[in-house]
């Protein structure tokens, strides 16, 4: 029974952590983009403009929720949630600290769900998220949105393949698909972490994750300059706000997965630094990746559709296969 209460408490904490962090990231990205552009970014609401997101939230909630006449209404309404709820579910398998940790005298695992198919859950939920985009574009009954949805469908399916394959290397090394065990495998200082043997896998995963997140240079489904807003063309007010918000939730999840699989999860870079709680290390690594995502986004142009496809199928996919083969060979020979 206590375990069940703990489970609910843990889930609530992780959920609110995700939501809060996403809200901060919306402000953070604008601020960081402003800095990179020699601007100041938002600076009026609160100190350094930290309350900007809440101001935006108030504005979005007050706006009229326009649902065009020709849209497929149930699908149109459901699509925003389909985009971020599956992604947020993935947070359940991320370990935030050691198993059997002692908190105020109670013993518990610092993970919501410790089960063996963690990576599979992540991949499955990633595949579900594409429905949100495709539904949004299709139900809008608008040609711009349709093009965005089509691009998104093709792009996500192509890059999911390389993404999944790049993770198989990690699975082979750790001999498990359980994220807790993968983190255990990486115990020790940072040269035990997976990103050293799996550097190619990590690079592929990082590129594919940008594509999954629909961020520049792979933000074709949104493509502000071509499709205006792509699949969310017809959305207004808070529904649009949920799309915006889900982008950041997805980003948090993706960086958490990346930190867990390739960078030792909650573990400190050196054994002696483990006095700092593990979840702080995890958050620090996540923030590192998030800043990297933002940095890339505001520095590079966007690929064209056919270039994106050829990059995914002709370069990343064979590379991921080769990486898998080499890893399997090395592990077998050892």
């Amino acid at each position: 029974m206590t375990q069940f209460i703990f489970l609910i408490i843990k889930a609530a904490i992780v959920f609110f952590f995700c939501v809060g962090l996403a809200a901060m990231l919306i402000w953070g990205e604008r601020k960081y983009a402003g800095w990179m552009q020699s601007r100041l970014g938002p600076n009026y609401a609160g100190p350094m403009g930290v309350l900007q997101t809440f101001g935006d939230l108030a504005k979005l909630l007050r706006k009229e929720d326009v649902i065009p006449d020709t849209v497929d209404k149930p699908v149109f309404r459901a699509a925003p949630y389909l985009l971020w709820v599956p992604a947020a579910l993935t947070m359940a398998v991320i370990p935030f600290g050691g198993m059997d940790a002692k908190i105020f005298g109670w013993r518990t695992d610092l993970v919501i769900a410790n089960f063996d198919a963690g990576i599979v859950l992540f991949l499955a939920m990633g595949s579900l998220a594409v429905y949100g985009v495709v539904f949004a574009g299709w139900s809008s009954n608008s040609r711009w949105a349709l093009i965005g949805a089509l691009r998104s469908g093709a792009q996500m399916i192509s890059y999911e393949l390389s993404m999944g394959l790049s993770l198989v290397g990690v699975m082979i090394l750790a001999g498990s698909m359980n994220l807790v065990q993968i983190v255990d495998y990486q115990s020790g200082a940072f040269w035990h972490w997976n990103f050293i043997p799996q550097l190619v896998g990590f690079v592929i995963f990082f590129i594919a994750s940008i594509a999954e997140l629909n961020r520049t240079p792979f933000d074709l489904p949104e493509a502000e300059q071509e499709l205006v807003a792509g699949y969310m063309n017809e959305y207004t007010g808070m529904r649009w706000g949920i799309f915006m918000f889900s982008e950041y939730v997805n980003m948090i999840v993706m960086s958490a997965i990346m930190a867990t699989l390739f960078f030792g999860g909650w573990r400190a870079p050196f054994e002696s630094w483990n006095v700092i709680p593990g979840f702080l290390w995890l958050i620090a690594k996540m923030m590192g990746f998030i800043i990297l995502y933002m940095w890339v986004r505001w520095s590079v142009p966007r690929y064209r559709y056919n270039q994106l496809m050829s990059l995914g199928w002709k370069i990343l996919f064979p590379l991921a296969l080769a990486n898998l083969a080499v890893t399997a060979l090395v592990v077998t020979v050892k």
Partner: protein
Amino acid sequence: MGLIDIIKKATFFEILQGMSVTGKYAASKKFTIEYPKEKSIPYPRFRGSQALLADPVTGELNCDACHLCETICPSQCITIESSETPDGKKSLDEFTIDLSRCVFCGFCEEVCPRAAIVMTANYELASYDKRDFILTKEWLIANAVHAHKELKGR
């Protein structure tokens, strides 16, 4: 394509190079002027809203109501009403500038034979009320405090 090119491609050399530039900007000093807090100071030739200058000694308006500015104005935003005083001089009764038509070309200042109408440094002209855009003679005389310094002495 030599070996160096391949290495550069595989290590994302040029993308990292580009990111170093944006990263440098993120850390360096910002270019923004935070407008309502700090104001930019216009150069002496800046063409802000007009003002009517008066003689610094007698306090009389320089304007002779010769209608030159009214005639040259390309957007016809100046309206002058004048009457004749008993001693045969023209006197200015009403001088109105419709700011919503004005294009700030500075022709009125340029053709004025008496340095009576000048463009000032006053650029804060936004308003919620359209009626504020009709600049009356009194407004224009009061606006002379914004006139560029080198013009005031003339």
